[in-house]
């Protein structure tokens, strides 16, 4: 696979790569803010194109990185090849009623599951790095980071009680 990127004056940035089997995928981040994706099958002359908004493109990216996408829960797995193939996942959850009123300390999230809560989104406001004394409310969106196994444990032991 070979990836190349070009800056096209007046248009935006183009990323193009050819798969080992000879298919080509090209992406254009245009100045109008939309993203166009072209795919060209090997041996074909006319590509087919799809135009996306940035939000749609991000969703597509999440699907391609292998994350499960549900209506409210979204997750991204990042692999750092420089750090001995460290794979780490970031996942969002919505706090259910059973957990509301408890603090991070009460739930012993880190000792029990190993994951870390890195941000809480409450009524359009974001709280980054909530302290252990942080009290959850039902409907809070939380952003959790950890390995896939730890996240599963978090889902099983903390979110469903």
């Amino acid at each position, binding site marked *: 696979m070979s990836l190349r990127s070009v800056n096209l004056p*007046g*248009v935006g940035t183009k990323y193009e790569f050819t798969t080992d089997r000879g298919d080509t995928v*090209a992406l254009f981040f*245009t100045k109008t803010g939309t993203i*166009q994706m*072209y795919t060209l099958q090997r041996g074909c002359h*006319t*590509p087919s*194109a799809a135009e996306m908004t940035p939000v749609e493109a991000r969703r597509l990216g999440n699907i391609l990185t292998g994350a499960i996408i549900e209506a409210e829960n979204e997750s991204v797995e990042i692999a750092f090849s420089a750090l001995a193939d460290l794979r780490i996942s970031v996942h969002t959850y919505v706090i259910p009623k059973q957990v509301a009123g408890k603090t991070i300390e009460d739930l012993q999230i880190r000792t029990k599951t190993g994951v870390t809560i890195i941000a809480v989104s409450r009524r359009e406001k974001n709280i980054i790095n909530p302290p252990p004394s942080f009290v959850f409310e039902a409907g809070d969106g939380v952003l959790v980071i950890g390995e896939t196994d730890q996240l599963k444990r978090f889902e099983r032991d903390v979110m469903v009680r």
Partner: protein
Amino acid sequence: MEGIVLALFVCLILALVTKRYSLPPIPFYILGGILIGKSGLALVTSDEISHFFAQMGLIFLLFFMGLELRLDRIVQNPTVVVTSGIIELTIDMGVGFVAAYLLGFSLMDSFVIASAFYVTSTALAITSLIENRKLMMREAETIIWLMVFDDLVLIIILAVLAAANQNIIFLFLKIAAALAIMYYLAKYGKEFMVGILDRSDELPLLFTFGAVLTTASFAMYVGIPETLLVIALGIALGTTDPDAFEQHARPFRDVFLVVFFVFFGVTVDLTGQMDFFVVGIICLLAILSKMFSGFLIGLFVHGSALSGIEIGGSIIARGEFSIALASLYGSPPVAAIIAVMVVVTSIVGSFTAKYTGRLRRWMSSPGRRAAHRRVH
């Protein structure tokens, strides 16, 4: 003042219609201007305020062009850019000049017509590449770089036209001095400017507007054409934080440029001795000559006639820069001819740009090939 309000209202409606049906907006702004202006219902006349607004439109158009010209990028594939650029320049400029001169225009007028005839509309060509989803084609890159070449030639044309009635050496010295000042301001003021542009209050907008306006009025004060100096300012600021400047200059350009197009339409005189024969010939040649130069570029650069049709069909539309040349250096009859040429070519060009894609798909579709083989 009521004139501008009425003009803006007409623009708003035209913008909604053209966006709804993906039509090129520039010809419709001009037609709207013609309709409400001198040659139409005579509801609006140009006054000092509208003149100032239109002037701003022109200045911001050229400033923007300068911002996007990042000279360090041009050297990526010089042979392709230069080959295609020179083919286009010689053919279109040549055809335009000879035609205008044979039709009885003076040398100076012929040069203005030829320049407007040559300069393809960057905005229309690139928008149609995006909207018709042609960005992935190999011809798209050739067309995009061709537009950059056009911009560079336009700067030379503007310089030549500016120097036509001045002491060239003195003008050259003044321009060189102004460029040196700008270069040092961009080099040593970079951190200061980036600091201002990063703010989220009204300062970045105010700074961008002020910088462009100051440069333009400075140019007028020392007697250099402001068009050249604002392009130079764009290029100089393009070395600092071009994306931020584009973001902050865009609102000014968008609004003022529309006013510029409409009031160009308002002031154009189509009622005078408009020779329909002359206008018809210029428009027809404007289309044919671009088809031909595009065809040759396709043959020389991509070695394919189909590519040539594609490129030819994509570069027919003339637009903002032709109008700019007409409003700066065109006598009333020349401006009228350029106005009609821009309206005709931009509408025809938007259709050819759509159509070449279909033509190409049809030519390369397996069904047709099979049918073709059966015939032989």
